């Protein structure tokens, strides 16, 4: 799919698109292994590998040594690539989000269960009838608001 050099570059790019959290708790998209999602993403974009290869080429052309740049430098190169190849870059961003947030190990970092949502679902505190009656009382008290 991609050479070792390309894969290294791709992981660095991904870590800029979704950077790691400052406390190290949340990984960036590169470290999370999102690159492995792309080859199977044809259902979500017409030519995912083609689009990503285009972005890789644009980045490499603009910055032969992307890895040596600091964060600000990498972002500047990526913005340049985004302006040169807007469609391919948009595809990369979209697929990165899909690959990242579809991972069961990532969702809990944002307060969402890792599990498939059926059959377990989520326990939700029910609106106790008394509390709901109390909260709706002012609405009832104002009377009907429909026209017949």
């Amino acid at each position, binding site marked *: 799919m991609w050479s070792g050099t390309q894969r290294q570059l791709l992981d660095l790019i991904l870590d800029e698109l*979704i950077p790691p959290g400052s406390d190290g708790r949340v990984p960036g998209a590169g470290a999370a292994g999102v690159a492995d999602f792309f080859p199977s993403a044809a259902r979500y974009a017409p030519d995912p590998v083609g689009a990503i290869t285009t972005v890789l080429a644009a980045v490499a052309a603009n910055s032969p040594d992307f890895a040596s740049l600091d964060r600000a430098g990498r972002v500047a190169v990526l913005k340049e690539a985004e302006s040169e190849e807007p469609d391919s870059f948009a595809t990369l961003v979209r697929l990165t989000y899909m690959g990242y947030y579809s991972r069961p190990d990532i969702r809990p970092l944002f307060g969402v269960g890792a599990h*498939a949502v059926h059959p377990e679902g989520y326990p939700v505190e029910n609106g106790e009838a008394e509390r*709901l009656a109390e909260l709706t009382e002012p*609405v009832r008290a104002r009377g009907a608001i*429909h026209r017949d």
Partner: protein
Amino acid sequence: MATGAGETGKDPVDVLIVGAGASGAAIAWSLLETRMRILCLEQGKHISDRDFPSRREDYELARYGDFSCDPNVRMLKQDYPINSTESCITPVNWNGVGGSTINFLAHWPRMRPSDFRTRTLDGVAEDWPVDYAALEPFYEMNDRNVGVSGLGGNPAYPPYRPELPPIPIGRLGWKLAQGFNRLGWHWWPSDVAILSRDHEGRQKCVNAGTCDLGCAAGAKGGANFTYWAVLERARMELRTECRVREVLIDPNTGFATGVLYHGPDGQLQEQRAEIVILACNGVGTPRLLLNSKSKQFPDGLANRSGMVGRNLMFHPLTGVSGVFDEPMKGHEGPMACSILSQEFYETDTNRDFVRGYGLHAGRSTTPMTYALGGYGIDRPIPWGEDHREIMDNVYPFVAGLTVVTEDLPEEHNCVSLDPNLTDGDGIPAPKITYRLSENTRRMLRHGEERAKEVLLAAGAKKVLCSDDGNVWWRAGWHQMGTCRMGNDPRASVVNGWGRCHDVKNLFIVDGSIFVTAGAVNPTSTIQALALHIGDNIKNNIANLFD
């Protein structure tokens, strides 16, 4: 009893229903007691609850692939493409047994009495030939069949009481309700076709938050779980993967004689019927009629009024979000259905628009969908450090309000046949021509400002609003008005009980017959209308075609 097309002959049936969605299923149930031979043709398939994506760990991906609400994204064999390049909203749907109730969000408000009398009350659009009082018994009948949860006593409606208690309104619902109360504005727990407790053999909602991906629990009152369960036990005949191409007409009598349809193998077949009922939604039904041309009907069947395909109405939407100081857990619980405010529903002459809108407190969504811009929107959030900031410090704390506006009928908003695009069977695809009216734009602006006020009153520390004047792209869930009802055959397609003015054994029962759109989700009214029409067919059976 689902069968393949090849297993049955051309024997005439008494009633042929095209479409196995919300309205087709409801009218089939209504007519079941007549013991007429009823056949339903459905272009899609059955989908088992075992196949719903919410059972998969990567369930969110399905929203952008095989389970997208957008047929132009799904592109499954049973889907037809829709050209919406000349529209700011694209129609969404599901083609299969249960129709779009497979992926609808089951929000279940009724239309209000004034919605049926907008000409009389407000001088706009047209009055319906039926009113709230006439439909009320059918709303009740339908609610019993579907299983509706909610809280009685809503002052926005004449009295009625949902059978089941409300579903949890969730943390964001409690928060926003307090905001509405502080402003002295109406709100109420949403009526939903979702079970808040086990009911008639169906399991209560597990708060999975993925109603759009099919309800694997069976708690959502989709027609697949409600009406079709009864119809199949009664062994009513259903042929799946059968796509109707054309309604046939007898040139001598002017009556419909049946349909031509493509079976699962693509072969064209004829099915004859005494009564034909169309239940293909507000896009599919005009498409079928416009494709049914003959010497008698050169502009499309039942189209002497020229109204077939015209007056397309959606519910244009926009959203405003507030960022609170505690997690809102918006991914837990039924997606769209927490609380609904109808404070601004009715016309107020002090405003710069007529009619009104609802403020819907839906829940938020899962991280992927939020990162991609939200449900119904294709506008990913920024990448880079801004992404990190939004997902860490905004997403978990968000509660939103959706402004759902009433769309008034305008003839230039329409469904036509695309001259080039076709579906997999070579049938011309529908083309949507649609633009927002100035009245709707004013309503949206007004709604955004009121939503901001509510969010701030509820304690939001920051309010997020695009303010760009755009509406949600994939917001074409509700497709209405394209074969509207009316008493005047020159200005409407069907009469007050769904019978085509021009073809007296041809009925339409889906959302295309709506005269106005209201500002509420339409499925409750679509099914109530279908039951009303079924009742009229039964009551007039002796002289049905007079």
